[in-house]
């Protein structure tokens, strides 16, 4: 019932595909994101850069419906949205490659591919998985990312790490009709895998999708990115476009962002100590 409909990719680029307005997320007392504003336009690759714990994955969680934001707004083609589950985000055409790939090792490859959005046929008491179609689509989608000769009934644990990565990417390509969010996988990638990831991202851009790439590798980001969002301690530390920077600038800025925010928090600590004293 939650199959993603054929969502029209937005063409008029006046309204960004995705927009964050003073968006905040808290985990208890931790401000994972505080008052982050950013636009993620269609047909462009927006790279999110930041050190560990700067809130990158939290941003991904909000965009993909896993976590609700506490304050501020998330706009999808100009309309404020509150995704209640990743299912809704996927149905709205936002697909995600998760940092840990989100693959269930004991489930077969085709079940993994469609997990959470399985095609069905028949009416309720007898509504059942459309197994043949799911298998076929899985084989097609995997072939599109270069994995051929696949038995979709094998458990995903029989896949090599690289092929698992391809599974996660193929899934995002299939479901991402409006936007693709990539939290750069934590597992080390081979050169071939990195290339596949980058090609997927670039292909999504040329199809007019909004792409958000989370990474902490500035060189990598500079290779494909059109816009750069620097995060530090859950806050926006900088917004740049490709014309503003080259790779070494980006690297310096990232380091600078950390330095700047370290200085900033040291100062606030000092202030509060003085205030109490």
């Amino acid at each position, binding site marked *: 019932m939650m199959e993603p409909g054929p969502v029209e990719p937005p063409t008029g680029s006046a309204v960004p595909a995705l927009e964050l307005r003073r968006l905040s997320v808290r985990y208890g007392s931790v401000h994972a994101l505080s008052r982050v504003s950013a636009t993620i336009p269609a047909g462009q690759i927006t790279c999110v850069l930041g050190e560990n714990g700067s809130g990158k994955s939290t941003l991904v969680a909000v965009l993909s419906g896993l976590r609700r934001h506490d304050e501020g707004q998330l706009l999808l083609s100009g309309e404020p949205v509150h995704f209640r589950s990743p299912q809704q985000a996927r149905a709205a055409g936002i697909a995600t490659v998760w940092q840990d790939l*989100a693959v*269930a090792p004991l489930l077969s490859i085709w079940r993994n591919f469609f*997990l959470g959005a399985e095609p069905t046929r028949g009416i309720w008491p007898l509504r*059942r998985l459309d197994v043949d179609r799911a298998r076929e689509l899985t084989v097609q989608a995997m072939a599109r990312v270069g994995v051929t000769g696949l038995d979709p009934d094998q458990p995903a644990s029989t896949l090599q*790490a690289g092929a698992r990565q391809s599974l996660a990417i193929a899934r995002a390509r299939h479901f991402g009709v409006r936007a693709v969010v990539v939290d750069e996988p934590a597992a080390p990638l081979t050169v*071939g895998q990195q*290339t596949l990831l*980058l090609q997927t991202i670039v292909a999504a*851009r040329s199809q007019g999708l909004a792409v958000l790439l989370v990474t902490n590798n500035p060189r990598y980001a500079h290779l494909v990115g059109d816009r750069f969002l620097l995060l530090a301690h859950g806050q926006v530390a900088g917004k740049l476009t490709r014309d503003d920077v080259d790779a070494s600038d980006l690297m310096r800025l990232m380091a600078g962002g950390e330095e700047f925010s370290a200085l900033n928090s040291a100062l606030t600590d000092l202030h509060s100590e003085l205030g109490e004293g």
Partner: protein
Amino acid sequence: MSDRLPTLGASPVELPRPRRLLGRALGRPSLPALVGLAVVVVVFGAQAPGLLTSGGLASVLDSAALLGIGGVAVALLLIAGQFDLSIGVLAIASSLVTALLIEEAGWGTWPALLVSLAAALLVGLVNGFLVVNTGLPSFLVTLATFLVLQGTSQASAQALAGSARVSGLDEAPGWASAHAVFGSTVQLWDGRFRVSLLWWLAVTAVGTWTLWRTRFGNAVFASGGARRAARQLGVPVRRTTLTLFCLTAAAGWLIGTLGVVRLDGVQVGAPGLGSAVDFIVVAVIGGCLLTGGYGSAVGAAIGALLYAVARQGIALAGWAPPWFQAFLGVLLLVALLANAVVRYRLKAVPRS
């Protein structure tokens, strides 16, 4: 735009030749139980030939049926990564509710059955709600439910009926039709086969279909095997877990109802912790992993059959009954080891 990319091109990913035989075997969690069943039938068939007559078969199937109904329900729950220790005592408690409503309150049979079903579902809901919302291990939550239900049912049987036994229900209106649905028997040669057998088959068939052919089944597997991935992909893990606890509660009610109709009453004994883990033992023998994500309904049904053959076989062979417990322990250990091997093979992922 793609001119910025290195000119490598994604090298097509080479897949290792799928290990077909292994893949097939791993796709059938019930396989070890089937082998075990064959061994046990051969061994006890030789020791106690009475087992293989129609009479022996009827009694084996009879005890397997009740065990199997609970076993299948618990298997589904185990696949989703949860435990339920309360199903056995829930069977007794819900049949006590039925009996008390009929005997003490003078209700008709069907209204009493409906109310006890509702009460059982309520217990399942509470179990599921606690597990889902507190994050406490379901093992402990249902252990608590087990104790509460056991104590309450014993105390209320004493208080309301004056003894641990409530009987003489067959006068109640609607009893005949309830007996036809839950208690009829058919005589084949010299064995009396009960309708509980059909219920067992139906539960196994529906359980299997649900697991493998519905979105709910996919959610069950994913909730147990990869909960984080399931959440990230929007699988309704909480709703699935809640539903499963209600299903085991309903299975408990069915077992209780089959019993109360057969005996025209209910005996509130002290089933002890033994019957609390029986169903889990059956599911584990049937190939369910205790860590979730793997198992089958058919496996649990075969596990129940294996259990029943061993129990009847030991009785018919004239061995002392305690041997059954020892045998069960060995069986459980073997099943756990077999499952550990499966788990190892399944999780042994080549890393690049």
